């Protein structure tokens, strides 16, 4: 047994809480589902290994030539850069929560326990969770490579461990810099935006480079293209250290792991002394009253429906964190939009790339906004006790969601219409269908939640999450096929309708007070 308030005691406490949180998230709070979750994880793991086998198998062998083949080094380095950007993004969000989430910090900081220990354990927990997620995604590929190519690939596990720590320390340093430069008030919002950018920047950057240089959105085609080979340094360059570490070369691997451990130690020494100050500064924010200078349109002289609609818009526009989270999906529209702007906007590019991406993004965006308007209603009892019919409340919320989606997609649709009006019309129809479907699903599976839980909304109902994703995918596919004049579009439309019918059939029997 570790003594109370020691480092191991805090670590055990933290691990126990994280485990319970993980189980709750996986089972959506229903403990009897644990066996089903284990079976699901096993099946998913087998499927992921089969997928990795199918993708990697034809490209083997790597080793032998791997250490000298520049193409292999470029691809592995590209994948590591992608993983690192995603790890940094996740770590940045988690580090922000370390400073801003109140939960038990008030209790711990008011105790005589050492702040440095709390800080060490929390940052280690961030590094651990960041590493675990990447390991989960990369494990099938590593295992397949170890079996089919060379056991040296198992070194990639150690590399991910090292990269997880480096990504966490990178994110921690960035957050501390933000605290010092922009202050506690703005750090949370800016770090959320930076996290989103860091996560998306590599994928989008490579896609944009691919469009600009080879006229394709394929990242892999770009990485193996002659353009990249001509830019790449020689095989003895330090740039390839991570790739060589992934392939199990002992020197580079030890270098990465030792650097990671040293960095971690440095960060704890350097940043732990200011931890409680920053937490207190972040805590102080909730006690201040922020003034609203620009009130925007007034609620006066509007009908109840218009009042409700305006309320949804006002709340969304005033919550910058929610805006950044909601618009995350829109980031992925940048490459197709760039493609359109670059002059690749031929009808074929419109229908095969831009239309489905736009439909998919609209569906996801509508789902997020619908969750905010319906489940994230902060005063459901007020709305429910107002003399407004259920139909009017639903209409107002649906209108608020769909009009917000329209504001974002109409400009892109207008440009599309300039290139090809028929494709733009098809795209508009599918966007409406995808957005309406996502909104309907959120309505059927509504459950009262705090708006701040927006990022974890998927955990409330697995059926709703999958139904929303699949309906968006089917509508996106329908848009691509319909725009190309294929009658197979009807098959995908039927699939989308089947998903909706199934979701409606599986909807819970709601006994909530909202929308009687």
């Amino acid at each position, binding site marked *: 047994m570790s003594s109370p308030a020691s480092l191991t005691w805090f670590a055990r406490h933290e691990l126990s809480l994280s485990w319970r949180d993980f189980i709750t998230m996986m089972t959506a709070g229903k403990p009897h589902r644990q066996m089903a979750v284990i079976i699901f994880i096993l099946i998913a793991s087998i499927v992921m290994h089969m997928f990795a086998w199918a993708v990697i198998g034809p490209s083997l062998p790597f080793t032998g030539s791997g250490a000298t083949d520049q193409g292999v080094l470029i691809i592995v380095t590209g994948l590591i850069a992608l993983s690192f950007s995603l790890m940094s993004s996740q770590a940045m969000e988690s580090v922000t929560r370390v400073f801003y989430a109140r939960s038990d910090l008030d209790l711990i900081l008011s105790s005589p326990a050492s702040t440095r220990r709390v800080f060490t354990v929390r940052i280690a927990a961030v590094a651990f969770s960041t590493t675990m997620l990447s390991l989960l995604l990369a494990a099938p590929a590593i295992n397949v490579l170890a079996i089919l190519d060379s056991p040296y690939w198992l070194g990639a596990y150690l590399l991910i461990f090292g990269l997880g720590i480096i990504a966490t320390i990178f994110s921690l340093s960035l957050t501390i810099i933000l605290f010092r430069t922009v202050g506690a008030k703005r750090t949370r919002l800016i770090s959320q935006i930076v996290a989103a950018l860091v996560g998306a920047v590599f994928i989008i950057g490579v896609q944009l480079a691919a469009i600009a240089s080879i006229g394709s959105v394929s990242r892999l085609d770009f990485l193996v293209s002659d353009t990249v080979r001509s830019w790449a340094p020689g095989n003895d360059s330090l740039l390839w250290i991570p790739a060589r570490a992934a392939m199990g070369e002992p020197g580079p691997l030890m270098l990465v792991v030792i650097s990671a451990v040293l960095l971690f130690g440095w960060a704890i020494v350097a940043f732990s002394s200011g931890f409680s100050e920053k937490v207190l500064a972040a805590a102080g924010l909730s006690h201040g009253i922020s003034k609203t200078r620009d009130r925007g349109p007034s609620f006066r002289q509007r009908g109840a429906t218009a009042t409700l609609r305006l309320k949804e818009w006002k709340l969304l526009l005033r919550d910058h964190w929610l805006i950044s989270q909601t618009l995350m999906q829109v980031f992925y529209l940048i490459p197709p939009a760039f493609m359109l702007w670059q002059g690749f906007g031929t009808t074929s590019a419109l229908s095969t790339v831009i239309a489905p991406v736009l439909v998919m993004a609209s569906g996801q965006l509508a789902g997020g906004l619908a969750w905010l308007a319906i489940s994230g209603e902060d005063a459901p009892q007020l709305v429910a006790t107002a*003399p407004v019919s259920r139909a009017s409340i639903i209409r107002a919320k649906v209108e608020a969601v769909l009009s917000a989606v329209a504001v974002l997609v109409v400009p892109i649709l207008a440009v599309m219409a300039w290139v090809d009006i028929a494709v733009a019309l098809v795209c508009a129809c599918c966007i409406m269908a995808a957005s309406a479907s996502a909104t309907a699903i959120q309505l059927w599976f509504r459950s009262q939640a705090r708006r701040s839980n927006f990022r974890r909304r998927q955990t409330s109902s697995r059926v709703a999450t999958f139904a929303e994703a699949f309906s968006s995918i089917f509508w996106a596919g329908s848009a691509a096929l319909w725009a190309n004049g294929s009658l197979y579009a009807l098959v995908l439309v039927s699939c989308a309708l089947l998903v909706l019918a199934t979701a409606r059939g599986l909807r819970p029997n709601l006994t909530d007070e909202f929308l009687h």
Partner: protein
Amino acid sequence: MPINALEISGLYKAFDRPAVAGLDLTVRGGEFYALLGPNGAGKTTSLRMVAGLLLPDRGTIHVFGKNALTDGLETKRITSWVPDEPMIYDRLTPAEYLEFVAGLWGVDAKLAAQRSGELLEWLKLAPHAGGRCEGFSKGMRQKVALAGALIHEPKLIILDEPLTGLDAASARLVKDVLLDRVGRGATVIMTTHILEVAERMAERIGVIANGKLVAEGTLGELRQLAGKGEGSLEEVFLDIVAEDDTVVTSENRKDAA
């Protein structure tokens, strides 16, 4: 003959077990009525059904003669509900919140603006009218919620534990506002665990236990019922509730036998 503000008859609602088990309750127009009962007695469930937040399994509810179950919109127009946990929008200012509520209840904009100013002033929220509610204390949030409940001048005001967590000054202010409304003809129904408040403010007091009304009357009538000549409401209440528990226990014993 004056119309009763609220008439509940044979109200029944069960979740895992009956929460409200055949409640009959009448509250007169213009009355300040306090509803007391131990935790889980069915007070909040009953009032949520009156406010249209829950549908009963059976029974009838009439608000000023209108059937709340078949004519919900009409009864909502003249009713307001203040829950124990104030539910307001963090990103709106108090002034905007009141505008929003007035919009929902269809109050004329000019009238709403005038009432909003008066309420904010009266509840000492005027200096914060332009600040967002996100930084407000519990007391300030409760006052904003109360102002929202009054902006459409409801005839029936239902409050569930409105004074929980309020400091003395805020509690006094809320009590003053409620008494003023009763003075102007509104009916107030309030649940509370603070028995002194019920003792001082309410004209009549109802005691609910196990989903049923077990005692009702003025403080004097309740004292008589409990056989406590000069006892405080606390003593009377504990006596009534204990008696009811005994009845239930003995019934359970009979069932078990």
